[in-house]
């Protein structure tokens, strides 16, 4: 690495070591594999990415693919015509430059069942972390990092379908209202926290609120099967309390403590209204 000192200012002694450390890390990752852009979050399973084996950083010895924008990491793009040979497989190395994209061709050429299985296992693991939180688990922030939107989508659609099956008239309207209420509700709750000055990432919060619907899904299913009003009320109250309890830590930690109730009340309101809808539809 050549340093031209003519255009730099003499450094504070501690900053030189910081800069050198970062330099070394960048060099180390460059030698270990392609790293286009630092991803917005370190994905733990290898995700499908564009099968580009060269990046703006390395001098490519491979026939150059058409120039890609460096931030399009998680989209499935139709593969490049002159398919470059696969880059050397990368492990999850340094923390700054996450190389968790993995060898791209494997995720594109793998069987569909593998992809589906991977997504399903992510849903299950997120569900366990969000809805059945184990206080002694070793990595409390894992669900936050590995958020996805498939789980919430399944749960919302399932709840809408269950309510629609239970309804005796106007089934399609019931589904529409339930779906709109849940989807718009999740977005509005997230916006509420952001407006109150809280710190959350938008899609992460959508994902968490979607996962916290799982107990209400179970409650709706039980209410579909059993038709007694008293049992319905008990089941719905229990699952409602469970959902709110699951959502409480995420929401309350996101805002200023003086505004905690302001952020939590709408969550409670949404779950109570969904619970009411479950009881009333018979």
């Amino acid at each position, binding site marked *: 690495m050549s340093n031209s000192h003519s255009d730099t200012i003499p450094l504070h002694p501690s*900053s030189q070591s910081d800069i050198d450390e970062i*330099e070394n890390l960048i060099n180390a990752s460059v030698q270990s594999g392609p790293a286009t852009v630092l991803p*917005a979050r370190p994905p733990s399973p290898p995700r499908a990415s564009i099968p580009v084996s060269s990046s703006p950083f390395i001098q490519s010895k491979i026939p150059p693919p058409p120039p890609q924008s460096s931030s399009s990491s998680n989209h499935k793009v139709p593969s490049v015509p002159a398919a470059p040979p696969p880059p050397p497989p990368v492990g999850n190395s340094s923390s700054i430059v996450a190389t968790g994209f993995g060898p791209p061709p494997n995720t594109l050429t793998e069987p569909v069942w593998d992809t589906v299985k991977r997504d399903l296992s992510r849903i299950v693991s997120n569900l366990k972390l969000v809805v059945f939180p184990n206080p002694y688990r070793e990595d409390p922030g894992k669900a936050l990092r590995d958020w996805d939107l498939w789980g919430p989508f399944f749960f919302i659609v399932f709840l809408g379908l269950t309510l629609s099956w239970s309804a005796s008239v106007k089934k399609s309207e019931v589904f529409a209202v339930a779906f709109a209420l849940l989807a718009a509700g999740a977005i509005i709750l997230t916006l509420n926290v952001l*407006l109150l000055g809280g*710190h959350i*990432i938008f899609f992460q919060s959508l994902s968490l609120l979607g996962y916290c619907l799982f107990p209400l899904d179970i409650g709706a299913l039980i209410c579909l099967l059993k038709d007694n009003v008293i049992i319905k009320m008990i089941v719905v109250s229990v699952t409602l309390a469970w959902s709110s309890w699951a959502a409480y830590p995420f929401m309350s930690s996101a805002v200023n403590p003086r505004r905690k109730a302001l952020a939590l009340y709408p969550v409670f309101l949404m779950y109570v209204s969904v619970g*009411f809808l479950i009881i009333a539809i018979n």
Partner: protein
Amino acid sequence: MSPLNLQIRTFKRFLHRVHKGRSLVELNLLMMLMADTFSKPAGGSQPGSGEPQGSGWFRTFTIAAYKPYFDVDTSDIIDRLKESLFPFRGTFTEKTATNPDLYGPFWICTTLIFVAASIGTFVTYIAHKLKKKEWDYDINLVTWSAGVFYGYVTVVPLILYVILKYFSAPSGLVQLFCLYGYSLFVFIPALCLSVVPLEIFRWVIAGVAGFMSATFVALNLKAHINSAGERWFLIVTGIFLLQLALAVVLKLYLFTVTV
């Protein structure tokens, strides 16, 4: 020089300037870059929060444009709610003049929609069960009450804003939203009490709640218009009657049960 070397040199220059405290703008940009790439949730999904706002009409679509209206604590909201239950003080507009909030109006309306739909459903359910008739859930209650409440709190303050401007007693639009939003709070306990199946009782409740709510709006508006030195009578009576009409409409639609 290879692209990587160029990158590293530029990065180093950034750090030099940061350490020398040269430029806060560059420090800001650097922090944004790092925050975005390392997904620290500081500032969340608004990378532009440290920069001067974009100009023009599309500011209304950013979250940051509405943040000042949500700058309230739980204790503030509770104070304002309590204030709305005492309509004869007339001090609400003064208290919220500097810090009107949109949190209260929006969530009061949403709670009202839910309470109205659930109480209305419950009332028809009880009525049908008492007469041993078939009962189906009417999903239109939810959509209808959503339309009424959100529409009322949005449209009427807008019209009032225009009218006040015409009569040279201008008031801020957000203050009007705030006033109307909190004036609807008294309907929540009123709706809960209306579950009692006595017709006279329901009319009394609706009348009292409507009167309280309308007085709240009217007195606060009167205080405001007086301070601008204009004649207040016509506007204030109009507003009063409108609020009473809302209460009557609610009573008629939600609690008229034809079995």
